[in-house]
């Protein structure tokens, strides 16, 4: 897409804003609509958009596929690990009260933050990984073919 000047300029302007919005949705999910699932998808969209406009190689330079594959598993580990952490503190699995016994609601906030982060990381990883897997396969299409 070398000749799509407007697309490239607009993408450069948008990618940062999309990533910022993903973080907002991720960490503001307690107060406004959104959470890990939505934030993960939005984060992935930023990289997918970059990959579509600038080519897969450029996207893989920014977000290499070995890292993407690690993130897919890391998110589940963060989620399950939160449960294990609460067990080690002597509470039930995924009982977030463990993280602040004096103020159980604060513990709940920490627990929700952690598991939502896990969800977000896995969803980002899976979405980008699927996109890479699709886009990596030949044959590449020319613009005129659409």
């Amino acid at each position: 897409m070398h000749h799509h000047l407007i697309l490239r300029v607009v993408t450069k302007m948008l990618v940062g804003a999309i990533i910022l919005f993903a973080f907002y949705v991720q960490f503001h999910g307690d107060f406004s609509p959104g959470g890990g699932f939505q934030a993960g998808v939005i984060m992935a969209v930023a990289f997918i958009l970059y990959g579509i406009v600038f080519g897969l190689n450029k996207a893989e330079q920014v977000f290499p596929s070995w890292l993407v594959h690690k993130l897919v598993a890391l998110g589940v580990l963060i989620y399950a690990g939160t449960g294990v952490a609460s067990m080690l503190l002597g509470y039930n699995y995924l009982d977030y009260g463990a993280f602040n016994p004096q103020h159980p609601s604060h513990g709940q906030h920490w627990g929700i933050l952690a598991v939502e982060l896990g969800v977000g990381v896995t969803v980002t990883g899976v979405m980008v990984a699927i996109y890479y897997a699709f886009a990596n396969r030949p044959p590449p299409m020319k613009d005129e073919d659409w």
Partner: protein
Amino acid sequence: MIETLINIVLFAMLVLTALAVVRINQLFAVVMLSGVFSLLSALLFVTLDAVDVAFTEAAVGAGISTVLMLGTIALTARTQKKSTRSGMVPFIVVVVTGAVLVYGTLDMPGFGDPNAPASLHVAPEYMIGSIKDIDVPNVVTSILASYRGYDTLGETAVVFTAGIGVLALLSGLTRRRREDEEEDV
């Protein structure tokens, strides 16, 4: 009144989009229309005050799915093959299924009915506890991540498994092929 009007307009556009998807043979247009369909459903979820669901529908249905469908088209074909069979049997199946589904909704409680079984079981406990015990204003988040933490762990595992499955299907194959080619050389 205005809400009824919005609902009617949205549903009419939804039906028109679905009909267009069925009629058009150019798959690029079909994929774009399915994105439009998702966006319209997201708007309907907003009118139902289900903003979290609308958010997901807009991001996943209209965003990611469209991109993945385009990726699939790039790997396969751009036009639909002409079917030699008549469309009568599928049409009857669809009409009968639709009629059964509509019949099923007749027994359901009205929208937002406080006496609906779904609002009487654990929902009141969650609504009160979400403010008192968890202190999170977005009830959806408190139910999803705290009360139903096990379910969400399961969902995350499903997303993980789906991702691994697609990777095993798509990237594993190309690597094997490349290795075969190297052996041939």
